[in-house]
Each structure stands twice: as structure tokens, then as C-alpha cells.
């Protein structure tokens, strides 16, 4: 499947060649240096082909179809579920619910487990570094249930204050939601420790895996996570694909999320009973082709090996931190130790607005993100309005880092008075 392995070493330039969008030259002939994978990743030929083949050869509505084509579509959809389960080492494919993205996965938990289990006065714990998608669903739930919402503070080095977490757990937290990896700081949070602490205090744990599952080995059984949400489009899969992992015992006890076809067992006008999980949470015709594409993405990443993906990004990040530190007036956020962070680098450059930095980099066909990265409480904590963010993935190479650095020097030259 992946042809880039040479004697067990990976030729990352050949990996990059799997991504058609990175091959076309920009307006000035420069190749695209895509450094915004934390927002959404590019897609390899293998994923594009899997989706294309589905529509050319297997397209039909799944489940209940008696004809061959529907059976084949159903088989491929369920095979993708097994691929995704295997990718995060879920004990059973029934623990994987296909959704559109991380946001939908977290809202699903808030609207089902949350509405059933959170009561007035209960404490919900999030963190100061959560993406809005792992904050707003809990805000809405807390408002509806008159529950309390508290955020774990962060330290100046961009790590979570675990003493504060312990203090909040001591107040009887019912639920802890946190990001495995911060989408702004790149911090890799000590998920096994946090989950153990939360479980010891009797809390259920929701892990936002949007920035970890695509970039490093994630084993839900080892983590002992109750729920893990992640997006397919950030892990080389199609837009509109994502998954929620939930422990079977928890999913089994949860009421439906949306009502409609596919999620029922028996229906009468006034009363219905629900399908088993995961069908109970997949009302309506799912995005079958996208799920199949997500399965292909998981297969592609597994062929490279998630340890190798993590190591590649760690090496790139180490190099990037070393080079960026040489840029005058740069302020890098997040942990300094490359072992403690993922390939996400947020920074400010003197008093040049991040939007201007990104616009100047864009003139060199370098794609980075500028803004609050859906983390306004974190930006407030850091004392900035916005940052510029560069993020890495399998298709990035040293040259991308070099171009970023020279682009930042150019930005300083332009703004020098």
C-alpha cells in the first residue's frame, strides 16, 4: 500500500509524493509548504482513490438492502469501522460511532451521556487550553442542567496544573474533558495520569483526540479513556469524517443522540425502542464514502507506523524550534522540550500582527494559520489576541521548516521601519 518504505527506513519525500495537492506549483512556481495540518490535513492518493472507487463501484445505501451492491457497501462501511477500531486499539468495533468530526462526537456525548447523568450542582471540569469544541458543548450542558463548570489552569510553560486538577476532582467532579494534545500550544498532556486521577475521583473522562490520534500512537485500552473524539479530516481522511470511541458499557446505557432511520428497533406512533450501539447513534444515511475513506486513511497511517509518524514530527519540531529561536523578537508558546509537545508551533513575531505574518508567508506559498485557533480563553491566559501557528504532518520535510524561517525573516524586513 505505502511504497515509501526502504529497508524499514521511511523515505518522507516519497510519502509527500503520495499527496497530489502538494505537487502542483504555486503562483510563483514555488511548491506549497503546507503547515496547517492541525486545522485539516491533506489527503493521499490512496484515500482519494478509495472514495472514488466507492462511488464508481459500490455506491448504495447501506443496511437492509437485499441486493448485492447494498451488501457490498455495508460490508465496506463496517470494514472501515473495524479499521478505525484497530487504529486506536478499541476492544470492539461496536465502540466506534461514525460522526462528521470531533465537534459532533463531543456534542453527542454531552447531549446523551451528559443530559442523562449531569444534575444540578454537579461539577464539569474542562481546561484552559481546550478548543471551543471541547468547551461550548459543556457550557451548554452546564447551563441547561444548572451544573458548575471549572477549567484547569495552565502553567507558564504551557502544561496543565495537575494540582489544580486534583483540587477540582476533590470537589466531586462528575466529568473531566481535556485535550490529549493542545491545538494551540502543542502540549502533549499526560493523558494516562489525568484519566487515572479522574477515575480515582469517580469522574467520567472525555478525551479530545483531534490533535493526538492523527499524530501518535493512541491506545484507548491503555489510556482507559471513557470517550475519545477525533476527526478523520485531520488524519488524511475525507472532510466530514470522524469518530467517537466510547466504552461499550457507557454507550450501551446512553439514550439516542438524533432520531431517525437506522437508529431504531421497533417504532409505533407514540413510542419506540432503540437499536444496539453503534447504530443507535448513527441516525439517517451516514456518509458512507467518507467513512470508507477514513478507513483507508487509518490503513495508510498504519502502514507507515504511528511510532514513525510521531518520530518524524518530533524531529521536524526539534529542528523548527532550534531554527525559530534564531529569529529575533519571536516568542514561542508551549513546552520547550520537543518530547513534551506535538508538531504544533504557536508564536508571535515582535509586534507584527499574526494575520500579517500569515499573509506575508502566503506570498511565498507557505500556508500557516493566524488567529485564536478556537481557543479564546487560552489566548486571554497567554495575554495575546492571536498567534501564528505552524503545524506538521507526514508530508512535511526540512525544506518546509527552512522556508518558514526565511519567510519570517522577510516579514521582519518588510515591517522594519
Amino acid at each position, binding site marked *: 500500500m505505502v511504497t515509501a518504505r526502504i529497508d524499514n527506513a521511511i523515505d518522507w519525500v516519497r510519502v509527500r509524493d503520495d499527496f497530489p495537492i502538494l505537487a502542483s506549483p504555486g503562483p510563483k512556481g514555488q511548491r506549497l509548504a503546507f503547515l496547517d495540518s492541525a486545522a485539516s490535513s491533506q489527503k493521499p492518493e490512496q484515500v482519494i482513490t478509495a472514495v472514488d472507487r466507492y462511488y464508481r463501484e459500490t455506491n448504495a445505501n447501506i443496511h437492509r438492502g437485499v441486493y448485492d451492491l447494498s451488501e457490498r457497501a455495508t460490508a465496506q462501511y463496517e470494514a472501515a469501522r473495524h479499521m478505525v477500531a484497530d487504529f486506536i486499539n478499541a476492544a470492539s468495533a461496536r465502540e466506534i460511532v461514525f460522526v462528521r468530526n470531533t465537534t459532533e462526537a463531543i456534542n453527542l456525548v454531552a447531549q446523551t451521556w451528559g443530559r442523562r447523568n449531569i444534575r444540578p450542582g454537579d461539577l464539569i471540569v474542562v481546561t484552559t487550553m481546550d478548543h471551543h469544541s471541547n468547551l461550548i458543548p459543556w457550557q451548554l450542558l452546564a447551563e441547561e442542567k444548572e451544573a458548575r463548570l471549572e477549567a484547569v489552569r495552565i502553567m507558564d510553560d504551557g502544561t496543565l496544573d495537575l494540582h489544580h486538577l486534583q483540587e477540582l476532582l476533590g470537589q466531586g467532579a462528575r466529568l473531566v474533558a481535556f485535550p490529549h494534545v493542545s491545538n494551540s500550544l502543542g502540549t502533549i498532556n499526560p493523558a494516562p495520569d489525568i484519566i487515572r486521577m479522574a477515575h480515582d475521583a469517580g469522574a467520567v473522562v472525555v478525551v479530545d483526540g483531534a490533535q493526538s490520534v492523527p499524530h501518535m500512537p493512541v491506545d484507548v485500552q491503555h489510556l482507559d479513556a471513557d470517550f475519545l473524539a477525533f476527526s478523520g479530516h485531520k488524519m488524511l481522511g475525507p472532510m466530514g469524517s470522524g469518530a467517537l470511541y466510547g466504552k461499550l458499557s457507557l454507550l450501551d446505557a446512553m439514550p439516542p443522540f438524533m432520531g431517525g432511520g437506522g437508529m431504531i428497533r421497533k417504532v409505533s406512533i407514540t413510542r419506540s425502542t432503540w437499536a444496539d450501539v453503534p447504530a443507535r447513534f448513527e441516525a439517517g444515511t451516514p456518509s458512507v464514502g467518507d467513512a470508507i475513506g477514513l478507513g483507508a486513511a487509518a490503513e495508510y497511517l498504519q502502514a507507515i507506523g504511528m511510532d514513525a509518524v510521531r518520530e518524524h514530527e518530533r524531529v521536524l519540531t526539534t529542528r523548527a524550534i532550534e531554527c525559530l529561536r534564531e529569529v529575533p523578537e519571536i516568542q514561542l508558546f508551549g513546552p520547550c522540550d520537543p518530547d513534551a509537545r506535538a508538531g504544533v508551533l504557536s508564536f508571535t513575531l515582535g509586534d*507584527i500582527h*499574526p*494575520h500579517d505574518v500569515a*499573509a506575508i508567508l*502566503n506570498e511565498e506559498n507557505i500556508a500557516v494559520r*493566524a488567529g*485564536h485557533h478556537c481557543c479564546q480563553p487560552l489566548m486571554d491566559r497567554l495575554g495575546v*489576541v492571536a498567534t501564528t501557528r505552524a503545524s506538521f504532518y507526514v508530508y512535511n520535510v526540512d525544506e518546509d521548516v527552512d522556508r518558514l524561517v526565511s519567510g519570517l525573516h522577510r516579514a521582519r524586513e518588510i515591517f522594519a521601519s
Partner: protein
Amino acid sequence: MTDSLYREAILDHYRNPRNRGTLEPADFSYEDVNPLCGDEIRIDVRTDGENVTEVRFSGRGCAISQAAASILMEMVDGRPLEEVKAISREDLLDELGVPISPALMKCAMLGLKVLKAGIYGVPPSDESL
């Protein structure tokens, strides 16, 4: 650097903004933000009923939003209100003189949007600028 959006004329307005400040009291004031990147602009205007007699802007944000607001100040200072009302997106883009990509359009137009909101009392839709 001639192919850059960040030409000297833009950078000059960014570094040396015209009519920067506030007017207290003003005949009308308005402020707004661009939620995408956090640009903030406030514009204070004094009039004699027919003409803009004094105008100031304040705020913070990217060079495009601040330079465009500064350029807008030069366009409206001393002008009849009826003419100010008629200033269009294209008029401001002509004055800016650099190609503004869709991603930066909201930044470039924030000042004009705030000014018109001040004149009319409600913010105009992006299409009607």
C-alpha cells in the same frame, strides 16, 4: 518587494496613521471587531450637519485593517456627509491600490463598515458596503 501586498504606501499608513485618536464628545461614534482575527476599530466623527468636520479612528489589528482605516480617514475628512455615505468598497480598494485577497477583505473593509454603522446607526451588511 513590489509584488507584496505590503507596499510602502500601506506600511506608511500603518506606521504613521492619519487622524488616529478619539473625539470626546463626538457627534457619532461606533466600534466593531472582526471576529476572525480580532481586529478592532472605533471611529469618532464630528459634523456641522452637512460636512465631516473632524474624524478620528482608534483600535488595533493587522496592518491591512489599520492602514485601510487610516486611508479612509484621509478620504472622508472635510467631505460632505452625503459623499461619505456613497463611498463604496471599490472606492476604498482603489485608494488602497494593492490586491486584497478574500481572506483579508474583512480586515480591509472594517473601517468603512464601522464608519457607515456610525452614520446610519446600524452596521451595514458586507454586500451593501
